């Protein structure tokens, strides 16, 4: 299951949605300094898990 990645990306998506709807200074700050790193971490962890699984199956 993808609970960790989905949680991190979910929080980041919620922040992005908040920014898109309000465009306040605080939501802008949260988007730049919180949501972006969260997406990067979630995406990197997801990619790591995909590559690990492919290796285990001898695809890579």
């Amino acid at each position, binding site marked *: 299951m993808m609970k960790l*990645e989905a949680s991190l990306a*979910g929080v980041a*998506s919620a922040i*992005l949605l908040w920014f*898109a*709807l309000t465009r306040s200074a605080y939501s802008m700050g949260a988007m*730049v300094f919180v949501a*972006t790193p969260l997406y990067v971490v979630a995406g990197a962890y997801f990619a790591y898990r995909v590559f690990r699984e492919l290796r285990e199956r001898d695809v890579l």
Partner: protein
Amino acid sequence: MSFLATVTAVLSGLALAGCVYLFFRDPRKLGRGEFVNLGFLTLTRLSVYKLIAVTVMGVLPIAALSTANLEVIEGAKTVQACAGCHVMWPMVNDMVDPGSDSLSARHYRSAAMSGDQCYACHSGYGFNGALEAKLEGYRHLVRYTTGLYPEPVKKRGHFNSGACFGCHEGTSGFEAVRSHDVGRERLRSGQMSCLSCHGLAHPSRSERTPGSASYQQLMEKPR
């Protein structure tokens, strides 16, 4: 709501829904023998799950972040964006006040400046100027969202008179004034400021200091 903000809202909403799906769905329970007909394509349930995972973890975040950052970069040029932070309200209120005689208010009333008046003076010319303004904007964002700023706010460094020269130099009105010619090099090098003769661009620091007589009026939320 601008077009970019609408696109960002749609993309981030889709990503959020996808995250909820990925959080609760256990791929081990998806049968390899079960198929989903997408109309033009038939896939196993597990393949659909993987497609959703790649979309939610890769495609949608990249697309949503791109539109959101574009919205920040483009949207930050407007006067409304500057008025988004309450410490800027004194400057914006004074600038839009028809009775104000400050330099920014006089520029605001000029037909030559039809929009994005804050950005026009506070960003240099060309790509470097725009880049510096964006970096400065990110610094402002950090200071504002973390509350690491004293009131009244103070401009970092000196105002570059090059921003004034960019529009005024070469115009008949500017060249007709003898002191502009005499002080041109000193103005260019920053030894002399345009404000020395033309008055303050914004309300003074004492006017913007909490507790001053004009503070309440200047701190009303701009309309």
